[in-house]
């Protein structure tokens, strides 16, 4: 049998493919079912957001930042506003800080719910996707009640937040959080100990911590490889140091741990939101900042921990009302760059599972 001539063939996974989240093409060199080499081809979703931002005032940059990473648009607003506030030296009122933390953590839960549904669907279980989206709808209704939009919120502004919480927000938020905490048992029962799920995800796509750090991988993917690094605690921003919550890490860095860590993070976010809701102070919600304010010359790289890792914005201003340079750094960009180095020598079914577990979305990669 040794003399059988076999040759590798190239398969295009994408750009129109059911399991690439957004438009991304992976050129796979395959030997039968085994993936030998991956070469990501990106740029299908490049909208030159950074060039657009250079032509807008700081307040007008916020709707652009929503489109940078639309699954967790709140964290994009937050990172843009933080960069602008640091440039202009604006202090945010107490109540705005609390509202921001509540909104950011709600958005993280909503993003992890999408992750849960999409990863399960990519590995074949079609029902968890609908359960995940059902809970997410409850959170999206909270967002729509406060800022009016369901996906691109344009809610967190340099200087605070744009509108105050409506009266019925806090009770509805508490009931939503309680409902999600109770629904998590359904999620875990459905998949966590399922032998087929374990067979498909345990030990698949091992990401070595050193490789992760070398390629700038961040967020839950990094923590699932055992590296205890979370920007909310290590490069503190906003008022996360007032709440007691734990940075959860998982030791062995395979797809199963990347899945479990996101369920842990949902629980931690629920804890943060409950404490933030209890401590919500009164007061105004926005520092007095005119829409086209002019920050003094300077530059700054603001970082936020969102559900896909570190979301960074470098902003340089020269005293005019439009930023000179805005650079957006998303977590998925580095994870997609690291994928060819740890996603090979596996079946195509495993590659789909690894790609889903990295929770890569393409607007963040192509900007």
């Amino acid at each position, binding site marked *: 049998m040794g003399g059988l001539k076999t040759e590798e063939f190239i398969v295009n996974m994408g750009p129109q493919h059911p399991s690439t989240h957004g438009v991304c093409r992976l050129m796979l060199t395959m030997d039968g079912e085994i993936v030998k080499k991956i070469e990501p081809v990106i740029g299908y979703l490049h909208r030159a957001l950074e060039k657009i931002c250079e032509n807008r005032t700081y307040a*007008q940059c*916020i709707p652009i930042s929503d489109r940078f990473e639309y699954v967790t648009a709140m964290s994009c607003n937050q990172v843009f506003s933080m960069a602008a506030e640091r440039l202009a030296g604006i202090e945010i009122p107490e109540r705005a800080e609390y509202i921001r933390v509540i909104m950011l953590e709600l958005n993280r839960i909503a993003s992890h719910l999408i992750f849960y549904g999409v990863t399960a669907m990519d590995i074949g279980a079609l029902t968890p996707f609908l359960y995940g989206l059902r809970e997410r709808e409850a959170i999206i209704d909270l967002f729509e009640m406060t*800022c*009016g939009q369901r996906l*691109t919120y344009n809610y967190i502004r340099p200087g605070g937040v744009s509108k105050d919480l409506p009266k019925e927000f806090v009770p509805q938020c508490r009931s939503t959080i309680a409902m999600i905490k109770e629904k998590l048992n*359904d999620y875990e029962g459905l998949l966590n*100990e*399922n032998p087929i799920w374990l067979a498909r995800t345990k030990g698949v796509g091992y990401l070595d911590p050193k490789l992760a750090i070398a390629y700038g991988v961040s967020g839950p993917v990094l923590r699932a490889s055992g590296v205890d690094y979370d920007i909310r605690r290590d490069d503190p921003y906003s008022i996360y140091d007032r709440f007691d919550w734990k940075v959860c890490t998982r030791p062995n860095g395979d797809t199963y741990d990347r899945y479990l860590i996101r369920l842990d993070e949902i629980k931690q976010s629920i804890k943060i939101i409950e404490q933030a809701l209890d401590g919500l102070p009164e007061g105004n919600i926005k520092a007095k900042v005119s829409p086209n304010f002019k920050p003094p010359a300077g530059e700054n790289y603001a970082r936020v921990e969102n559900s896909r890792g570190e979301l960074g914005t470098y902003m340089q201003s020269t005293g005019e009302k439009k930023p000179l340079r805005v650079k957006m750094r998303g977590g998925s960009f580095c994870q997609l760059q690291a994928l060819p180095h740890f996603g090979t020598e596996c079946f195509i079914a495993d590659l789909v599972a690894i790609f889903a577990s990295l929770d890569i979305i393409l607007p963040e990669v192509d900007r």
Partner: protein
Amino acid sequence: MGIYKDIKNLILGMRITGKHLGRHAITIQYPEEKWTMPERSRGVVVLLSDKETGDLNCTGCLLCMKACPSAAIRIDAPRDPETKKRTLLSFSVDNTHCCFCGLCEEACNFCAIKMAGNYEMSVEDKDTLVWDMNKLQEMGRDVPYVDTRKKKVPKPKPTAESKTPAEPKPSAEPEQKIQPKSENKNDNENKDTKDEE
């Protein structure tokens, strides 16, 4: 032994999906049942008109045009030199450009523009999405809004166009209202004096 744990978990999975089989479905049948949008939901941009006189609140101050990040609003409101008043000729919103961010609503001091909750805008021909003043006014006819303009005591003879909405010397600006410091020097339109300052 492993096999019992596996079978137990497989049955647990079936129990969870079976449990949902009995529950009532939570989706609504769209065209028949419609979702009631919350009060603040940012749907389509409309122009509001005064409750009594019925004509537009808009005074043509161009603040919303400046605030719009995607240049969706086009206003033609020339200022006739002697009365220093702007008369609004045309106001059009290009819904293909509008990104529904709500910045125009926040920039307006005269409750003239609002994002109503209506989201059904599907059309066959893209050009019909560029709405002119009448369409915007008619869309905004029944949109409820809180009139926060400071009513000027109507002068004995009401001037031809709508009442001058704000006194020359506005009292202390409320906290939320954003100070329209629009000293944009490179205003290539005709010299825009500091209106309402």
